[in-house]
């Protein structure tokens, strides 16, 4: 029982020690010390999480630590799952980060190695681990804001190198604080209505609150949490901040921070509020479904590797939220077994997504560090130059495409099972919503295959299409070790997901769906107790390996007389050897999909033809521009921004610069106030 507080105290001590270490230590040792401390934070926090998943719980109250409110901490299985995920990601990414900062052969300047960034990194890691442990509104909001601020500072780490970083930082700062305002409003209303601000008091007081107020609390907090998770329509910060942040930070944000949005949604929606009417969950499912399809479509169009990964995060979080919404819906109609299954599927997808997305961002960071290039159109040929990074990216991509033997397949299979069996629940709502949900999952899985074939095939295979890519060198050892840890995690999750079964059951129970054991089976297979379905990932892999061996053996035997492979030129249609310029780029790869989804994406294309001066028929220069703007952002945010800008412009007229006018404003203001007071009394 004493493991959790000890581990949390260790994590806190290491994290707090990391900040001054990053500030004062000289550059030579800074990266090492901060990296080791951060990894320690991850290991300690992860240990606490695993202990909580194993069934132990802990809660504490430190009245003096915060003025007025005090600090409340509690760890149950639900917190434990998110702490374990964050801890594992933090530990592996910290090892990767040591190589990133201290290793040889870096490309361009690294803001991440600076004093400021190194001081903030351990605090960010710590905040990721402590947010799920908060057990009162004030503690939660404080840690939430610590996480937002530290991540903002880290996003800005490379602001000297690229102006785009500053713009991304502004977007992130504004949107994350809009989210905070909503969260603050929602939780304050909740605490006021429930008559207490600890989670225990909220849980106890929720029954006395009117349905309207409960709905208001849910909508406010759900919008805030889904914005943190990067869901449409409040996703605009994500595809900006993730690409511009240093890759270590992108990995932490995408694999650990966005998860906490899901944590908040489950904690407040299912646990504290104890579920609610169908419209809550339909709203959540609509947001999830929209994000899944929209995110993966934008990822399919993206040529920037990190932007592609960021949109894929939006997609995966959409799928998770779809599962969370379905769980709420099933619980509402009283089918706790299916609710447990859907929630377990969603949470397992959180775990899987964290593992493969941290790996993918790590590999993207290696590429960026080796080439200074994020544009897939200018990459290529990396599998010969950075074979380990390419292999690790392939492992992550296999997880992301949701195909066996990858880890993403397991959770998407569970999610599909819960939706398919959800039709047994009577009611027209489920009959309409669930087929659409299955369609969304299937479409996003299909498009994800195209996206990651593009990322891997265009980015890493074939010949380099740019000088930077041609000169790439393999990353330092520690970066590979960090990614290797994540790859091992992916493999474990893919092959023996049953090991997580007990922990998932406890997590689902902690989220309020008691009495269900959604995922059973000892390690080797996933068996669903409530519906008849089994999956044995290890068997599928073994069958594939055996089949592969059989094919190789047969072909080897049939061609035994001609074993030597000879090299030959590529087919060039008799026109000379093909150059890398003729190869398909990411843009050309995505072109058919862009045409198919033309109406949804509304791409902008310009063709400028400059004819030769003497003749209109001879072309001197053709310029082609193709851009796929984020349409939701364009339509939804631009009017608001324009309105604000117009309001600001017109407000300038009030400030003419004359002191007399300003005194007049003060006088009028005072009189108005007095009049209001007189009339109001």
């Amino acid at each position, binding site marked *: 029982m004493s493991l959790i507080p000890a581990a949390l105290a260790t994590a806190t001590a290491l994290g707090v020690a990391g900040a001054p270490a990053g500030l004062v230590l000289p550059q030579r040792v800074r990266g090492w010390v901060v990296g080791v401390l951060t990894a320690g934070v991850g290991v300690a926090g992860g240990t606490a999480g695993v202990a909580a998943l194993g069934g132990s719980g802990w809660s504490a109250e430190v009245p003096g630590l915060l003025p007025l409110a005090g600090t409340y901490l509690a760890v149950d299985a639900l917190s434990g799952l998110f702490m374990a995920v964050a801890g594992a990601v933090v530990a592996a990414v910290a090892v990767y980060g040591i190589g990133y900062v201290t290793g040889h052969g870096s490309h361009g300047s690294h803001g991440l190695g600076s004093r400021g960034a190194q001081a903030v990194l351990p605090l960010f890691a710590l905040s990721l681990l402590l947010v799920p442990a908060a057990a009162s509104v004030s503690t939660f909001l404080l840690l939430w804001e610590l996480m937002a601020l530290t991540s903002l500072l880290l996003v800005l780490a490379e602001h000297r190198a690229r102006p785009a970083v500053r713009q991304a930082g502004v977007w992130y700062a504004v949107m994350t604080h809009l989210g905070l305002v909503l969260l603050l409003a929602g939780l304050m209303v909740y605490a006021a209505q429930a008559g207490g601000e600890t989670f225990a008091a909220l849980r106890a007081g929720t029954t006395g609150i009117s349905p309207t107020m409960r709905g208001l609390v849910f909508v406010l907090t759900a919008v805030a949490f889904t914005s943190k998770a990067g869901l449409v329509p409040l996703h605009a910060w994500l595809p900006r901040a993730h690409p511009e942040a240093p890759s270590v930070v992108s990995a932490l944000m995408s694999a650990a921070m966005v998860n906490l949005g899901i944590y908040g949604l489950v904690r407040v929606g299912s646990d504290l509020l104890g579920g609610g009417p169908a419209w809550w969950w339909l709203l959540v499912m609509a947001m999830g479904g929209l994000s899944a399809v929209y995110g993966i479509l934008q990822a399919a169009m993206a040529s920037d590797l990190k932007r592609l990964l960021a949109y894929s995060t939006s997609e995966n979080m959409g799928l998770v939220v779809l599962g969370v919404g379905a769980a709420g819906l099933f619980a509402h109609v009283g089918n706790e077994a299916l609710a447990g299954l859907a929630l377990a599927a969603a949470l397992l997808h959180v775990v899987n997504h964290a593992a493969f997305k941290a790996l993918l961002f790590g590999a993207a960071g290696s590429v960026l560090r080796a080439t200074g290039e994020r544009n897939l159109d200018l990459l290529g040929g990396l599998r010969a130059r950075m074979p380990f990074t390419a292999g690790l990216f392939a492992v992550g991509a296999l997880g992301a495409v949701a195909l066996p033997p990858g880890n993403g397949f397991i959770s998407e299979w569970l999610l599909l099972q819960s939706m398919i069996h959800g039709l047994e629940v009577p009611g027209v709502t489920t*009959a309409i919503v669930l087929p659409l949900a299955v369609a969304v999952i299937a479409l996003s899985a299909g498009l994800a295959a195209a996206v990651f074939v593009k990322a891997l095939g265009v980015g890493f295979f*074939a010949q380099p299409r740019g000088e930077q890519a041609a000169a790439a060198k393999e990353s330092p050892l520690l970066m590979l070790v960090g990614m290797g840890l994540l790859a091992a995690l992916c493999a474990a999750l893919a092959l023996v997901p049953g090991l997580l079964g007990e922990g998932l059951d406890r997590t689902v129970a902690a989220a309020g769906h008691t009495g269900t054991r959604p995922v059973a089976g000892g390690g080797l297979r996933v068996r669903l107790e409530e519906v008849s379905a089994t999956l044995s990932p290890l068997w599928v892999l073994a069958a594939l390996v055996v089949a592969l061996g059989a*094919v190789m053996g047969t072909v080897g035997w049939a061609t035994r007389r001609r074993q030597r492979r000879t090299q*030959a030129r590529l087919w060039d249609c008799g026109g000379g050897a093909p150059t890398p310029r003729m190869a398909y780029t990411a843009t050309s790869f995505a072109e058919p999909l862009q045409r198919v989804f033309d109406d949804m994406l509304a791409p902008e294309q310009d063709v400028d033809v400059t004819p030769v001066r003497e003749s209109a028929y001879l072309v001197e220069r053709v310029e082609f521009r193709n851009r796929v703007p984020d349409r939701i952002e364009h339509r939804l945010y631009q009017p608001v921004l324009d309105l604000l800008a117009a309001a600001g412009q017109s407000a300038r007229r009030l400030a003419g610069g004359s002191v007399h006018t300003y005194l007049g404003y003060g006088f009028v203001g005072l009189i108005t106030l007095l009049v209001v007071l007189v009339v109001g009394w």
Partner: protein
Amino acid sequence: MNPVGYAAIVLQVGTVVAGAPLLTGLMRQTRARLEGRAGAGVLQPWRDVRKLLRKEPITPVGTGPAFRWAPLVLVATSLVLAVLVPLISTESPVRGRADLIVVVALLALGTVALALAGLDTGTAFGGMGASREMTIAALVEPTILMAVFALSIPAGSTNLPVIVAGAADEPARLTSPAGLLAIAALSVAVLAETGRLPVDNPSTHLELTMVHEAMVLEYAGPDLALVEFGAQLRLTVLLGLLASLFAPWGIATSASSLAAVLLALLLVVLKVAVLGTVLAAAEVFWAKLRLFRVPELLAGSFLLALLAVTASYFLGGEGGQ
């Protein structure tokens, strides 16, 4: 353990492996006769395999492991499918593992492997083929999964043998509106997945129309033999799957008698041969769709699948329960 079940698996895989090139030969021969040509005979694909295996293995300059391994992965996934799909017996030793979603995912895995190989060559053809193939695959997957959904509703499970055995016991499921709609949707998806007309032309060598052929243009010798064999296996297994799902009569549903298994084997060979002949005959009269009209076809089949799900819910009272 059950020896008949194992015998059924061995027979099934053996028949699929031996019969896949023959099915392609049969389809080509049908097509040739209908077009007034003599045709090369049913055995020609096997002769092609033999010829290609005798040639020296060639690696094009600049290609990597993805190019080398893709044909093997393609054939391996198809072989696993040949084990999993219940063609002749629903009481096989792998029945607990034959989940329909796994089957769909394994199909997609083969497609992905080949698309990566196409990109790995770094030529315009390879990239073009990969890009088109993945576009089509991305749109086919929802259709297949929706059809799976529709089929699994009356059975209450996505397990293939359960679905097939249920349909064999209760043929009314197949003639229900949901069943018919699902058949239509899945048939279109199978055409797209196996690269047949009107989605792709397996015998084309014209740049503008190639999808699958562009992707595998750089393969030669034994590798090409594997790629072609893999495609033939996929076609056979998918036609077999269609036959099992929508005409499950004759499939051995108990694990007792070898005679039933042998009869089922004969029947499934017959069913797949008929399906193949019909498909080949239909292909004579179809033109290939323009690439950018294909999504319309697939969207149509997706709609059919969605209707199948909805119909099986709203009309499920009589047939299902």
